[in-house]
């Protein structure tokens, strides 16, 4: 019996993807994250959340452009890793940075657009993480499930905006992620246009035939 193709891929992604988080948990208390470990952990978890989210959104465009099918196998894992880092990012902020002082956290979320946007992105990712199982795909039906999971794009855009506002002066790095996201959008848009044209052509042909 042939084993499932690429059985190592998802476990490898989980182990490799989570190892920086484990490293941080070890390095932080040892002082290896520098004089301001909270800031370092915030920057790193936030960056990884965004990178992994963008990577998960690259799976379909990679299939469309290069006809690769393997990215589709890791899309869910990438998304869940992104959520793990986004949640860790928020926990570092709420617990270590703000000391779980609810007043300060709520004031930040309510008053400062930079934090409002980041928090919204996290909230949008929660239903996506919850409905990431096959059972939920079945329960919702694929079209509805797919529509719901397009929220990942909204979350990624908000993540980039959060990053741009976070940076004090040099926005080169967040703009790189904005450019990649733009490219991914463009590929999907082109595909949607192509599909519609094909559908219209089929409809026109069947209408023309007697």
């Amino acid at each position, binding site marked *: 019996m042939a084993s499932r193709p690429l059985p190592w891929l998802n476990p*490898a992604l989980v182990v*490799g993807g989570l190892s920086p988080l484990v490293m941080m948990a070890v390095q932080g208390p040892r002082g290896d994250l520098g004089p*301001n470990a909270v800031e370092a952990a915030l920057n790193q978890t936030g960056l990884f959340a965004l990178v992994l989210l963008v990577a998960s959104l690259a799976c379909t465009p990679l299939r469309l452009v290069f006809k690769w099918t393997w990215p589709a196998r890791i899309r869910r894992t990438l998304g869940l890793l992104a959520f793990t880092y986004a949640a860790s990012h928020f926990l570092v902020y709420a617990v270590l940075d703000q000391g779980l002082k609810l007043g300060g956290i709520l*004031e930040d979320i309510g008053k400062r657009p930079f934090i409002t946007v980041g928090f919204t992105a996290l909230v949008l990712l929660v239903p996506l993480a919850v409905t990431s199982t096959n059972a939920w795909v079945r329960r919702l039906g694929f079209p509805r499930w797919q529509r719901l999971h397009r929220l990942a794009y909204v979350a990624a855009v908000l993540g980039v905006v959060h990053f741009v506002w976070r940076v004090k002066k040099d926005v080169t790095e967040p703009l790189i992620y904005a450019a990649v996201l733009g490219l991914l959008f463009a590929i999907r848009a082109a595909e949607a246009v192509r599909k519609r044209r094909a559908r219209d052509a089929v409809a026109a042909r069947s209408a023309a035939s007697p």
Partner: protein
Amino acid sequence: MSDKPPAEPPSSEITPESRYLRRRELLKNAGLFAGTAAAVAGGLYLLGRKQTRFMDAYVPDAGLVNAPVAKGQGPYDTDEPRTPYEDVTTYNNFYEFGLDKNDPARNAHTLRPRPWTVTIDGEVHKPQTVDIDQLASWSPLEERVYRMRCVEAWSMVIPWLGFPLGELLKRVEPTGNARYVAFNTLHDPEQMPGQRRGTLDWPYVEGLRLDEAMHPLTLMATGLYGRQLPNQNGAPLRLVVPWKYGFKGIKSIVRISLTRDEPPTTWNLAAPDEYGFYANVNPAVDHPRWSQASERRIGEGFERRPTLPFNGYAEQVAHLYTGMDLRKNF
């Protein structure tokens, strides 16, 4: 050595072909698993490297200052625990050497703090260009243990070595028209590679009102922790105004000009809604993106401490701002 041919293994020990092939596949998969996991971890490690480069941070061993120094515990010194030398010299904002906190310690070796001259001009009776060592010999060096509060809501306690700016200004005799003091950092992309990027308008400029500049708390620093000022901390001469946010403390100064009008300041030019000319530490006036009500003291762990008005120097300096709306003049 035996002549006997090796015994054939009994057939019961021969691995069935299917299992033999399966074993090879398992090994191959294990290899692919390990390789991919390492590649993913390594890729993320490279992306996040900025945050972990502190591990191999370069802690400078700037030479001890030989001049006699009036030791701390003067009227303005805080007795709060001092931030470790290692942190003071590896966690810096000095965009001329890179944007990340550990970049200056890594890159500032290209700066040559000697020979160095400082030009003092503008509304003064005795304009001049002075060698840094001569300028530093005008007044006896003092140790001042000051709190430093960064606009990014972290703080340190640093034992500076220096002399009051007021002493320097008295010596060059400001004219009656002098109302402000303007400062320039060195502009030399060879020595300051960060200036090749247009992150900020170079050179970095800062300014004070004359009465702020003459205040006895305002220090021109040439050292810290009993040592020469490391390059990343603004060698050979920097400004320290302990009741203002750290970005007012312009580094590697080459020019001090007395002016009639308020001089431009770099961060105010870059983002006027976020960084004002005065930049007094004020827990009641938030930065647009974060609260200024509390701060994290570097080296003190996670607990934030409340930020004090004028960084705890209100008693000494609040009177400079009577009648001013510090929400507008932030």
